[in-house]
């Protein structure tokens, strides 16, 4: 059976990622792309909702450390994500499925590659079911 391509949801801050490129071009190459203004706006609610709706991985692209347009939104995002790993673990969602990458790419050329790298990592973990992570975890434990 052919393996399904992992579904990666990518949030990216407009201030460092793709602001010089054409949004249509980037969107055409990134299936689940959500451009935002500042990673500090991303709430655990958004990330959990992505997983609940079937994401296999969530990639967050933020501005380089010290370069946040709003001072420290990227650092706030890092703090939330670090705490959120504890929650994901309880749902049997591996740490590798959520990643914050701080950097910059004004034309957004590298974005599809970053998503692909994430997809490759996640593929090795196997698929996860979107609506019932608990059952999935239990099944894994009994094996």
């Amino acid at each position, binding site marked *: 059976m052919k393996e399904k391509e992992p579904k990666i949801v990518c949030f990216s801050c407009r201030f460092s990622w793709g602001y010089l490129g054409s949004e249509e071009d980037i969107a055409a190459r990134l299936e689940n792309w959500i451009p935002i203004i500042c990673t500090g706006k991303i*709430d655990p609610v958004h990330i959990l909702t992505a997983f609940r709706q079937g994401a296999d991985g969530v990639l967050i692209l933020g501005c380089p450390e010290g370069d946040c347009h709003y001072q420290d939104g990227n650092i706030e995002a890092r703090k*939330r994500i*670090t*705490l959120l790993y504890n*929650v994901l673990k309880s749902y049997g969602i591996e740490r590798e499925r959520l990643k914050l990458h701080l950097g910059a790419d004004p034309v957004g050329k590298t974005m599809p590659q970053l998503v692909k790298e994430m997809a490759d990592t996640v593929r090795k973990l196997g698929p996860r079911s979107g609506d019932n992570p*608990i059952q999935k*975890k*239990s099944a894994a434990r009994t094996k």
Partner: protein
Amino acid sequence: MTAAKKGRKMTDKKKVAILWLGSCGGCDETIVDINELILGVVNSVDLVLWPVALDFKYHHIEKMADGEIALGIINGHVRNSDHAEMARLMRQKSQVILAFGACACFGGTPGLANLRSKEDIFRWVYQEAPTVINPKGVCPQTTTSLDGKELTLPEMFESVHSLDQVIDVDYYLPGCPPPPYLVLKAITAFLEDTLPAKGSSLASHKALCDTCPRNASKPNKVSITEIKRIHEVEADPTKCFLSQGIICMGPATRSGCGESCININIPCRGCFGHIELVADSGAKFLSGLASMIDADDEAGLEKISEQVRDTMGYLYRFSLPISIMNQKKL
């Protein structure tokens, strides 16, 4: 009480039913705890069901006309087919359904069982727990034949549900259990026809921090460099718990409890649930807590994150079944 109400005949009295589903009994106890005032309530309504206190049978309810009960008060969570059946019967016979207590409103503490599958729970309880001796591997079944007779048990569902995942709920009275003064307020509003819009919570609309006596001591920016557990330290009884590095769910929890935990120097655990328009109070709290963390680098951040022992117990002690990841209609 008005003269008109006093003179009401028995038959004019509004019918009220109180039912427990997956409940510890604490919610019924809190109704009793309105003390002598309960007599006034009992006199002004016609209690048709209260399994914990009165001898009425479920088939009495089945025989009633649809909507004959004016108010159905339901406490406890829904975990098995019996609970679901009774909840549906109450919905059919009642004009107004009040979800009473954290279990009915959000799934409650038993909802933390949703971190395990039903299969895991059965295996642990009937086989693997160190105190279990069960060489034959006996495990409850929904039907068993014995001497030519068929015995049945309710079916345990895959997960714990809040009441509104099973039936339509008109009002919510949170708390574990709800404090007697709020119970009385709710029943009075019902008797006086002053209930708010359908779907409302019959508690405060503020967050606990807004009514907490320690709020004044909370600095504008709380900065946490170490997370401590309440039993590990002697908490200053005048200062905001969060400012002492002790997790307190006050920012993400509805007020109305009378700050009963705070007043005995125990941080809030969240039994009043979320405030209006919050989809997942655990996730919201996590977000707020993260912003208070003061760590210089990733290693420092990881260290503090590890100090949050039992994250799910803090974030979802009463609300896992209605959380984003776990919520599921029956």
